[in-house]
């Protein structure tokens, strides 16, 4: 096979070979060439506000500890003992000055430095002078607007360069608060019995919005008597390096200053004030973009940030071609008043998350795709051509442009690995 995509810009046809969703060799190449070389989201700085705060994280298949060390630096440590390998932190989160491996009782400061073990007279005097017995930290650890990323490739380009056009969209989130954004409690850990790339596609796909989520929009229509026709209007954009976005108007309330009739009049007044403040700070155009427009952002390969009826960041990783593990975060302004916060959270869970009125239907759609890929030998290609025939200025939100930017980058990376013959199968 030469390529996993068929990209015909003359006849406006774009196809993806379905083996990318089922093949174990593809997964092995993804682990080596994508999850070991791209910048991967590990969490948000607000998750570890105090020195000693830590959280266990699984990123790119690795067991990590995100910790704010005694020197106030945030680090990502590999959660494995340099002695004989046991997982060191066993609680999911906490605050600690030291990490202690229970197996042989080696202890480490919360920056990973070895501070003691029983019977150290059995080791040479220069033991660990080179630091090799400290807990290892991920070398490449960088942040943008409070979003923290790791990269397991020491030679990777900087996060700043990697994020390319996606930075503008993280800025639009940061501008929603004067005191910064924070992750709320209860990160949702769930799974889908489907290939991880199906979730990337689905997360910035307006085309499925109305058919898949009809029951949700029926409820919105019932709640808002002025809502005559439900639509999602906007455009998609390639943000470089495989990242993409759809930006659009939608018939739901946004806790950042777009009121909806399920909220009371006080909240309406609050939101008018918020909007005024945004206009004062950013001018009419950017204020409207922040308040009235929605954004589904894909940061290659596995981070989705949806700035919609609430803000969710979701990251996921494949444990097999047909199974992904997902982490869903909710972000909100730190200084948000509590009435407002409750409205936001209700907005979130009505649509999003494993108990929402929409996310479970997405889950089902993905699982049905995966199940039907049993027919891959005879039915080989997915069509991702929608809107390809349109000129750039006529692109619509329900087109599949942002997916094509993902697939082109995906294919480029996998092809490069095949040319080198490199495989860690």
């Amino acid at each position, binding site marked *: 096979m030469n390529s996993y995509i068929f990209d015909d810009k003359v006849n406006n046809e774009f196809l993806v070979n379905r083996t990318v969703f089922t093949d174990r060799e593809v997964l092995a190449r993804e682990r080596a060439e994508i999850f070991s070389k791209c910048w991967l989201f590990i969490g948000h700085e607000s998750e570890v506000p105090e020195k000693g705060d830590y959280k266990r994280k699984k990123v790119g298949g690795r067991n990590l500890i995100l910790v704010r060390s005694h020197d106030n630096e945030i680090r990502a440590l590999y959660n494995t003992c340099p002695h004989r390998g046991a997982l060191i932190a066993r609680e999911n989160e906490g605050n600690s000055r030291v990490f202690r491996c229970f197996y042989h009782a080696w202890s480490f400061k919360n920056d990973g430095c070895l501070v003691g073990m029983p019977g150290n007279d059995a080791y040479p005097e220069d033991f660990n002078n080179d630091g090799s017995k400290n807990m290892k930290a991920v070398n490449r650890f960088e942040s943008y607007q409070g979003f923290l990323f790791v990269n397991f490739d020491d030679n990777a380009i900087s996060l700043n360069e990697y994020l390319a056009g996606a930075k503008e969209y993280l800025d639009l989130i940061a501008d929603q608060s004067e005191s910064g954004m924070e992750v709320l*409690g209860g990160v949702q850990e769930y799974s889908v019995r489907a290939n991880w790339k199906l979730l990337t596609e689905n997360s910035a796909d307006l085309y499925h919005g109305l058919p898949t989520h009809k029951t949700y929009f029926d409820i919105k229509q019932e709640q808002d008597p002025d809502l005559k026709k439900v639509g999602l209007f906007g455009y998609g954009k390639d943000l470089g390096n495989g990242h993409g976005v759809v930006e659009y108007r939608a018939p739901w309330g946004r806790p950042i200053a777009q009121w909806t009739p399920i909220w009371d009049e006080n909240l309406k007044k609050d939101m008018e004030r918020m909007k005024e403040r945004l206009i004062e700070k950013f001018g009419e155009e950017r204020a409207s973009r922040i308040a009235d427009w929605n954004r589904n952002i894909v940061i290659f390969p596995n981070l989705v940030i949806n700035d919609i009826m609430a803000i969710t960041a979701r990251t996921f990783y494949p444990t097999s071609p047909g199974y992904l593990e997902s982490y869903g975060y909710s972000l909100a302004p730190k200084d948000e008043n509590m009435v407002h916060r409750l409205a936001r959270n209700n907005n979130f869970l009505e649509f999003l998350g*494993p108990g929402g009125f929409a996310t479970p239907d997405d889950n089902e759609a993905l699982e049905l795709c995966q199940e039907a890929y049993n027919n891959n030998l005879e039915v080989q290609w997915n069509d991702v051509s929608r809107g390809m025939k349109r000129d750039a200025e006529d692109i619509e939100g329900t087109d599949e442009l942002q997916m094509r930017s993902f697939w082109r980058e995906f294919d480029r990376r996998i092809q490069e690995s095949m040319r080198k013959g490199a495989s860690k199968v």
Partner: protein
Amino acid sequence: MKVENITKEDITEFLYKEAYILDDWNLKEWASLFTDDGTYKIPPLGRPNADPKEAIFFVHDDRERLQHRAERLLKKEAHVEYPHSTTVRNYHNIMVENLGSEIITVRCNFTTYRTKREVIDTFVGYNVYNIIPINSELWIKNKKVVLKHDSLRPHGKISLIL
């Protein structure tokens, strides 16, 4: 049914009735078990007493939304539950407090099995109910479902009413 005459057996029967109503997909009837100010909640894993302002619940339904939830799941366009999954709900270790008072508190463990497309998912945890007797009938004022899972894997969703 007078408040002072309600027995633990009455409460147990009522809970079993709720479980069968859900297993039989009579979801509108389920919603009608709730008082006008009834609530149905599923807090985040490991945080049964979380504050809904500080943490994201899986479900945080007031009476209106639990009605929406019930009606939505009966629609053909609630794709995740179409065709309907098959479920078995077992309630056990039922403990009843405050018999004889206006609000009866019940805690019980549950095991709920969901089968769809030849896959069985199991949900375990406990429910906390506030039940009130009005006009010789029992009503649910609050139902809180506390899941005892480390994550929602491999289920991936709570598409059912638990």
